[in-house]
């Protein structure tokens, strides 16, 4: 049960329903100049990435820095990193929905949009890091005339494929169906015929009748229920790509929870980055209030502590296992060895710096929160670097130890996905209500000052 007295006001500025709709829909009607500029930049990045991908596919993975010892490089780091970011949206919506945290309503739309774009970005990497990407369909378990020859159901990469495609499907649907009432709102207020037609098409003829709302709610619950499971499963399964192997530093049972938490961590950090940008650019401070940011920061403190625990647990287990290879991996390689910089960059950014959020002064200063959210994102990238690179480059036989460094093609590929992400987010700003209007209104209603008496929530 939600008590606004405890939480405080969720929407500032005593807004009426109409006002809320207008303010949130304003960016869709009027496009600021900087948007075009930013979109151009992101398209440029995207184009560079396309060129890198062209080189990759036409010439071969040899254009990357990967080798016969470390066969997975930036591609897999970035894949896990994007998937992690792609976690936040759904996690945010689902978990806060289950916990009945109504403050999520201002943020969940953006978070879900981010999820969909990030998962798209992520899915490019496993596809194109294949030696023969044109045969990617071999990974589908489809009936065939070769025996029939099935995929290897024991392979984590197959689980991965299933988990990610299911996740992408569910989170995209969840996001899209949540938007239907808002599309209808735009359709109803739009003046141009084309806009009316387009948004009309996407709103599936939504009229706003109680029956429709009832079904809408039911659908959200069903999808939410499925998504809740997927949120946990998808990154657990990504972690099995490593955990199932024999490679020291990969072969560990802590990975599934550690990956899920890590993903939520990076996702929440990216949500922060995004909503602070939204607040700054679109003056959404009344909806995404300081207390929203504050709440996310508090969550981050907690997750950061878990991350720190996970890191130290890994180190402890390496020592406790008594395995030479594990010991070498952690103590001589990661902590104090060739990859010490990457390890400590990860540790400090993820386990130490977020602890600054204990201070209210930090949480209140948006620029500081913004900087820390970026640091967490970088730290989480280093975490994946630590996992993917350090392990394979220093595994069992020292004769096969080989260093890895990326080439411009791999960097270009990553920059390309960053551009894709930015472009996706910009398109989202431009064409889709950034905040779930209908859901927000349900919160606003409770918050009306003349409505003194609080009612129990009928649902959610």
């Amino acid at each position, binding site marked *: 049960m939600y008590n606004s007295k405890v939480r405080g006001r969720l929407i500032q500025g005593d807004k009426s329903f109409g006002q809320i709709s207008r303010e949130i829909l304003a960016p869709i009607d009027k496009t600021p100049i900087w948007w075009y500029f930013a979109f151009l930049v992101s398209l440029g990045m995207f184009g560079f990435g396309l060129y890198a991908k062209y080189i990759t596919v036409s010439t071969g993975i040899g254009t990357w820095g990967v*080798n*016969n010892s470390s066969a*997975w490089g930036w591609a897999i780091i970035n894949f896990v990193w994007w998937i992690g970011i792609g976690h936040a949206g759904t996690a945010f919506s689902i978990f806060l929905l289950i916990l009945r945290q109504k403050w999520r309503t201002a943020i969940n739309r953006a978070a879900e949009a981010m999820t969909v774009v990030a998962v798209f970005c992520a899915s490019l990497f496993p596809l194109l890091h*294949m030696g023969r990407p044109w045969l990617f369909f071999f990974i589908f378990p489809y009936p065939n005339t070769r025996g029939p020859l099935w995929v*290897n159901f024991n392979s984590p990469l197959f689980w991965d494929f299933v988990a990610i495609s299911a996740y992408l499907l569910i989170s995209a649907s969840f996001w899209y169906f949540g938007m239907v009432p808002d599309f209808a709102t735009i359709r109803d207020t739009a003046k141009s015929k084309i806009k009316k037609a387009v948004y009309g098409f996407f709103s599936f003829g939504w009229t706003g009748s109680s029956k429709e709302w009832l079904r809408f709610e039911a659908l959200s619950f069903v999808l939410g229920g499925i998504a809740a499971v997927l949120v946990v499963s998808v990154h657990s399964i990504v972690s099995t790509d490593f955990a199932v*192997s024999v490679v020291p530093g990969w072969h560990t049972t802590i990975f599934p929870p550690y990956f899920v938490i890590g993903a939520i961590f990076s996702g929440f950090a990216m949500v922060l980055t995004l909503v602070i940008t939204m607040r700054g650019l679109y003056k959404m401070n009344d909806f995404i209030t300081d207390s929203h940011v504050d709440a996310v920061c508090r969550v981050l403190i907690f997750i950061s502590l878990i991350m720190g625990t996970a890191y130290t647990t890994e180190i402890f287990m390496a020592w406790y296992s008594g395995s030479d290879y594990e010991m070498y991996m952690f103590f001589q390689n990661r902590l104090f060895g060739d990859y010490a910089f990457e390890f400590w960059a990860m540790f400090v950014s993820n386990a130490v710096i977020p602890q600054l959020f204990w201070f209210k002064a930090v949480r209140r200063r948006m620029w500081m929160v913004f900087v820390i959210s970026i640091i967490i994102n970088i730290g989480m990238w280093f975490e994946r670097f630590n996992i993917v690179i350090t392990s394979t480059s220093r595994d*069992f*036989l*020292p004769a096969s130890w080989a260093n890895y460094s990326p080439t411009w093609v791999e960097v270009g590929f990553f920059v390309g996905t960053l551009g894709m992400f930015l472009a996706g987010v910009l398109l989202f700003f431009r064409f889709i209500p950034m905040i779930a209007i209908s859901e927000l209104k349900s919160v606003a209603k409770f918050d009306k000052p003349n409505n003194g008496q609080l009612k129990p929530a009928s649902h959610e």
Partner: protein
Amino acid sequence: MTQYWRSLEELNNPVEFKKNEVKLEIDAKRAVAKKASGSSRRDFLKVLGFSVATAAVVASCKRPVNKAIPFLVKPEEVTPGMANYYASSYFQGNEYCSILVKVRDGRPIKIEGNDLSSVSQRGTSARVQASVLDLYDDARFKTPLKRGDETSWAEADEYIQVKLDQLKKDNKKVVLLTSTIISPTTKKVIQEFQQFYPNVEWLQYDAVSAKGILKASELSFGKAFVPDYRFDKAKVIVSFGADFLGTWLSSVEYTKAYSAGRKLMDKGDEMNRHYQFETGMSLTGSNADVRFPIKPSEEKTILTALYYQLMQAKDFITIAAPASPVDITGLAEDLLDNEGSSLVVSGSNDADTQVLVNAINNLLGNYGKTILTESALNTHAGNDENFEQFLAELKDKKVAAVLCWGANPVYNHPKGSELKTLIEAAELSVSFSDRKDETTAACHWVLPEPHYLEAWNDAEPKSGVYSLAQPTISKLFDSRQGQETLMKWAGVEAPNYYEYLKKNWSDEFYQLQTKYADPRLFWNDVLQKGVFEPEVKSGEALSYTENGLEKAVQISEASTDGWEVALYQSVALKDGASGNNPWLQELPDPIAKISWDNFAAVPVKWAEENGVQNESVITLNGMELPVFVQPGQAAGTISVALGYGREVAGKVGDNVGKNMYAHVQVKDGAKQFWFSGAKVETTEKTFELALSQTHHSMEGRPIVRETNFNEWQLDPTSGNELQEEHEEHAVTLYPEQEFKGHHWGMAVDLSSCVGCGNCAISCQAENNVQVIGKEQVRNRRIMHWIRVDRYFSNEPENPKVFHQPVMCQHCDNAPCENVCPVSATPHSDEGLNQMAYNRCVGTKYCVNNCPYKVRRFNWFKYVGNDEFDYASNSDLGRMVLNPDVTVRSRGVVEKCSFCVQRIQEKKAEAKVAGRMLEDGEIQPACVQSCPANALVFGDLNDPNSKISKHFKNERNYHLLEELHTLPSVGYLTKVRNKKA
């Protein structure tokens, strides 16, 4: 019963009549039926068949014309898809090897060792293995050339014959410059040529000669020869700078003998002890039980000291032995304990040093036991003295013409550039070389001879050991054997070396045997076996004299200033003649693990003090060289490999590394492969080297397990205690895989393996492993399916060295198999870990999850790609591909298959013959030609097989067995024989 008859025929022969009647009846019925229908079913089918065929032909008229033509008349012994093996002889760069050439559909594609040879004993070296690729070298001459332009044989013969006749008339000297010739028949051809042209002088010249040994034996025994070293008979082997396992004299033979003297399987087996004195870390030094890093100038001092110590011990003299820079008292004791079963050799080309070695061997009573003087090694006949004289005469215009055959002095003589202008200025210069080289580039005429796999020849590598070489493919280009060219010029109208050879054999060698009564049967037998050894040995042991010893024991004070630089032959390229062979260029040096370059091996301590690292550049007498910091390099010395820096070799070999022959000095009529007083300066520059291994320590992991001989004698499991422990811990929830038929396995005896790299090239030839070039090797993407890992331990100034061949371990619990999402790498029911290239999509998960890192990814398209312009970028180069093995496309993973094609072939053979497979019948490429017999392959399900015995041996362990991957490859502990 009354008999009725219709005609007289019926009455006379009723049966025949009835038959005829029935036939006529049927015919009549058919005729009626045909008439009735107009066309028969047969006609219908005919029309249908014709129209379909016409439609097919018309529709497919744009089909490309296939060049493959089926055999209309099948040659008797050629079955498409089945390999034929022909015995032949390899002799290049002073290295002899008896071989079997595998010919598939008319193309020689692989070289195997010939087990009938007493010299190479089924062993080969990497050079021998790679020589098949030289056949398909793009740098080969396609036609005769006149000053670089195409010409015809007729034109060349006409011009040169006139010219030679004129020179004969003018009595001007003509020099026939060859490398060492071990062919008795060729020698005869040359003699006849000389008889025809008395003005012709024949001169043998080698890039790396054994002139020191020849001179010393002339002094000690009165005959210039290289004696027959029997390493298998020696209990103590002392080598002074002789890389007898890698490049020295007859390395394959010596490797066989050396490893035979170190084979430890059962209790009571004995093991030789090997001392090595050397400057840089050679392949041989890396296998030594006791190794002394010394300066090249100290070698003679130590030998003198050793000689005196031995003399004292035997109470022959009382004067004090001169001081030795290293402590050799233990060595002297060891030698004295093994009189008559020790062997001292030196790689030096200094006659005095070799005289000392002879004296020591004589003192130890080794002659007649470990060194045989009745038999000589003929592979090193090059005479540096005569060559210097020739050079002087050429300069003085006393030599008018040079006929160059197999020698490349412009490249491998210190005065090469001078020689080049002299040859260019000679009245006539002809090269018989089959491919581009520096000397040929200077010659006016190029009359290419065929590659040895296209030619007839014979050889006498050791006195009393004969062998034949036969063509295995018809000549690819317009070439003519050098012998035929000489015969032609000597007046033979239509020279035929084959007939000449055959005749010579029936004249000369037929009488040496009694088994065959017909020379033709004898010839066929030798041709089939490849080798011939007369029953009666002709040689007699020579007696030793102390000639020259007095001079030899004089110790001249070596100058101590400056660096001493040792020049050595690299194991891959040897003297550099095969510089255009990409397989050899890419074979990592066995010690430095560097390919595609030579480098300056510098001592560790000096490097640390001067901030020099791998890939730094130093100048050596002004020449810039990249550095490899070499553990075990003697202080104050640098070693650099010869055989690099070719300028005219072809697209692969041009300008790879630096040519060090310019630094070779000719002293006392012999090339000396070291020099002192070198100036070395560090620079700020760096030069990228292609290292295929960058970490040199085992990090305390039980990867190579070792023990010492005396400990092994007490307890064969010594050094291998972990094995039992792991076995106890091997608990699993899963049922163990069962192999009902065969279960293939391989054993690697780490004590036998010397690390020469023959297996890598043999595998490369067998399995179409692609060459990827320097940059990609540097990127750690080398494709070799079997690699030899090399580790150092103990103090870096003089480390212990470990060689460990690692190929796919074919784990029964393979980590690669369960992670592949598309099941591209399943396990066979014979225990093989297989690769289905067609299925592989290239996720590379298996590469990551292989603890042995034996999986190789095709990062690029390596075949038919201009970016990888090595062997596989031309139709000619691709002729070497083995049709039994798929050429892998870009983006798939590949790895050792245990030569599954050979397994299948032998299984089919046994099945057709209706018998069981014999143990040892199947031999993967690496196993077949291993010169050290370090690899054993067989069926683990057969308790009596050799492999099962190896697996049951106390020394056996599995690599990373604690991971419970259950490898099908076992390793036997490395045993050293240090003095207890």
